[in-house]
């Protein structure tokens, strides 16, 4: 699962750094967390957050802190409620994409971008579930 996470996050990082402003790294982390629920994802969140800051000219550590807090909130929520559902992935990705874009000073079309992020998150969630089932059974 860690190898799958590494590959998926690397692809997400490349996409986010080269092509688009949609927060692919965060969406991938959400899907991986919902499927695996592993604490090791904190290490990935920290490391990939740092690289993301480097390639997108942000202050080092800001994305890491955001991603780590986000993982913590999802894990807190999963101790009370079920998180491996389409509804959770959709709403969580919408809310956090909105907060992420707003915090980074992005002012236009935040809602549209957040909706696009939610749809991508849903597709990623299905993909990660299938990959996990195929690779790890």
């Amino acid at each position: 699962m860690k190898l799958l996470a590494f590959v998926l996050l690397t692809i997400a990082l490349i996409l986010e750094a080269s092509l688009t402003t949609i927060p692919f790294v965060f969406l991938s982390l959400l899907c991986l967390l919902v499927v695996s629920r592993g604490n090791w994802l904190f290490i990935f969140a920290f490391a990939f957050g740092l690289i993301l800051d480097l390639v997108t000219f942000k202050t080092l550590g800001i994305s890491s802190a955001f991603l780590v807090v986000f993982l913590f909130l999802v894990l807190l929520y999963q101790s009370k409620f079920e998180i491996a559902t389409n509804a959770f992935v959709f709403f969580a990705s919408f809310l956090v994409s909105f907060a992420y874009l707003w915090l980074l000073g992005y002012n236009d079309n935040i809602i549209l971008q957040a909706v696009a992020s939610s749809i991508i998150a849903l597709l990623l969630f299905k993909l990660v579930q299938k990959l996990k089932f195929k690779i790890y059974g």
Partner: protein
Amino acid sequence: MQRRNFVSYFLIFLVLSLIVFGSAKIGLLKPIDSLGKGILAPIQALTYGVFEKITSLGSNSQLETLRAENLALTQKLSNQNKLIEDNKALRDQFQTQNPKSAGLIEADVVGAPMFIPGISVPEVLILDRGESDGIKVGLAVVYQNNLIGKVVGASAFSSSVMLITNSASSFTAKTMATQSQGVIKGQGGGGMILDNVVLSDNLQKQDTVLTKGDVDTEGSGFPPDLVVGKISAVSKNASDLFQKADVKSLIDFSKLSKVFVVVSN
């Protein structure tokens, strides 16, 4: 047990992230930051090139040759246009009295993060000049005598500029005709307001707004009398403490390709 486990992971990595963030903010990680950017820039360029190659797979070779020729010609034309534009920008800047051209460093705009043409407007510009060229955080960026923004980040070979329309931007200003003083606040999305103007002052539509000047002893800050924009609407209510006005910059930030950093006044 598992809950305590993830709380400890969270705390460890949150503290680590905050330490990194704090160190980066005060400039302790500048060498690592520059080194990391230096290593990752070619990888980023390579992946971007790969994406371009992937999109061109399966296309007709003759068409590709024509496309390549077209591209080469367009590039020549673009280079020529750029030379003409650069020449004009430099000529205009040298003719400008304030700020003096001797204290300026010219820089090319190489990026505008989160700017999507037709959907959003630029809030931040990335310049191809950095600390090795004498750029430092806090310096004003101009085009002719128009204020563009302020340097908010600088690595060895590049820097980022927060535009005056950015919602985090705020500085003191005055109007040209009536000498009313106030604070210019960026509104995001390309807008600005002149706020905190006392009710007894007279704000006029179409009046030019200039910087009041807030240069500190290290040379950082905005020099006085740079053009911020023109007043497009005035909002004055007798019940309010202050009056305010909408201000529009004379510069289209999305079309800037060359700007000048004010290193000394």
